[in-house]
């Protein structure tokens, strides 16, 4: 982990309020695990004080570039969306423990489920899994047609299903509706998205190998401030905890209370 300036190479609006930004810099040398995130200082002044945690959605070591994909929603991400190529960004990272791909072998089959702005880190994940010879099925959930992104990128690596809440694209409803329908075969499930979605997946596949990536509001991002803690399951006293920033953001299902 390091704090460094990264140069914005490009910034593209790829869906409603969704931006994909390419960053270049030596920090990329330290990136490896899909699901890790960077902690971005959007402004140097007082307009945004805290850094914003954003997942790494693509690592390109050769060109020392990476991508982040984010929704411009609050103050910080809206200011981020105004940044121009050539500008520099103060980035702390890579942070956290990502998805473990080493456990899967050539020939294994992984199910990858993403919801909304939880989709981005899964793109680097499927890339790395497929590079290992693991085959993947992707189920992505969005609100509406205008919100869908990365469908083609995922489709390049494996079967890709989309659900939209309003039914304007793909299956109407949630990712779970798709899962019921397609009943995909898999050994390991990787998921990132809203907590209710993660909870539903945890319940749906109690006997599988399931990895979930969590979100929590952060202060430091490096484990020092105790902002991002979550309780452990099976902890009667309630004193045990994990920090999403350093112990996560990826946890094995059943480990922490969602």
């Amino acid at each position, binding site marked *: 982990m390091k704090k460094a300036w990264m140069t914005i190479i490009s910034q593209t609006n790829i869906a409603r309020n969704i931006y994909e930004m390419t960053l270049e810099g030596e920090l990329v040398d330290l990136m490896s695990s899909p699901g890790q995130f960077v902690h971005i200082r959007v402004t140097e002044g007082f307009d945004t*004080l805290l850094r914003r945690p954003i997942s790494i959605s693509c690592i390109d070591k050769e060109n020392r570039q990476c991508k982040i994909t984010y929704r411009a929603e609050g103050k910080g991400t809206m200011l981020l969306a105004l940044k121009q190529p050539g500008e520099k960004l103060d980035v702390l990272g890579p942070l956290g423990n990502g998805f473990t791909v080493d456990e899967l072998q050539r020939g294994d089959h992984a199910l990858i489920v993403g919801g909304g702005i939880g989709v981005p880190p899964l793109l680097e994940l499927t890339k790395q899994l497929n590079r290992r010879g693991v085959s993947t099925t992707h189920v992505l959930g969005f609100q509406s047609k205008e919100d869908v992104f990365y469908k083609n990128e995922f489709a390049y690596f494996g079967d890709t299903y989309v659900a939209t809440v309003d039914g304007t694209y793909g299956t109407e409803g949630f990712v779970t509706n798709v899962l019921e329908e397609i009943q995909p075969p898999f050994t390991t499930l990787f998921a990132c998205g809203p907590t209710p979605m993660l909870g539903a997946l945890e319940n749906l596949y109690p006997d599988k190998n399931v990895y979930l990536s969590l979100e929590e509001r952060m202060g430091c991002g490096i484990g020092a401030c*105790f902002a991002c*803690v979550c*309780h452990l399951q099976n902890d009667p006293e309630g004193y045990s*905890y994990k920090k999403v920033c350093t112990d996560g953001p990826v946890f094995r299902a059943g480990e922490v209370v969602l």
Partner: protein
Amino acid sequence: MSCLSIKLPGLDLKNPIMPASGCFGFGREYAKLYDLNVLGAIMIKATTAEPRFGNPTPRVAETNAGMLNAIGLQNPGLEKVLSEELPFLANYNVPIIANVAGSLIEDYVKVAKEISAAPNVHALELNISCPNVKTGGIAFGTDPAVAFEVTKAVKEVSEVPVYVKLSPNVANISEIAVAIEQAGADGLTMINTLLGMRIDLKTGRPVLANGTGGLSGPAIKPVAIRMIHEVSQKVSIPIIGMGGVQSAEDVLEYLFAGASAVAVGTANFVDPFICPTIIEELPYKMHELGFEHISECIGRSWKQHAKIAYSRT
């Protein structure tokens, strides 16, 4: 002698900069980023007799030039701090200021007694000002008589000098400060956070699960400066100042106000390297303004015959 060194009760500081309690954990994370030996001291996270999980999340929120936190004094408890955290910090040549919290006076006394006996704890910081716990905390810090009592009780058992951390959520800060001085405190640390709240427009509810939280960061600096300016003229024990410090200039403003050393809290989250950066820049800034040693800066804003070292030309 370095131009930054200063001696305070129990503390032989190579420089007046230290991370503030709760913003630096027990140092482990920052130790991976830089050599902790550069720090003047370290104020470790509040320690309570028993382990605490703290408040439900979300526990932090951003505000205009500030942040709210309602961590709720999460910590591994006295025993683990003694057996795991302090020994880790003993690897560094940095005095530790142990932040002591509790719900009852007995809690403070118990923690103070045991933690002050740890070899690398050079001073205690009594946290009678935490706004994020239901009992104790801030309640002790807003009533001069209670503040007197807890300070006195802790002084009786502590093996090291005792600093007391003041809450800014009071009408008359000097009254509390004087009571604490009379109870025998060796120093003051100020300020803890202001009580604040943010409401999420989408849910209609407070952003923090706890409802209220402590406001810290640049927004509160003027409040801290005026309190230190006032209190430093009313007491003769030293003050460690804090609240929104982000730069060497901010540090000098605190010293001018009357602080003898300065702690950095929230800024560690914004820039994890902020403490070493300030320590590096401070001598330059100080010399630029015409000072040779930081002791000349202390209380400059009110000292009667302080010469104005710099005149704008």
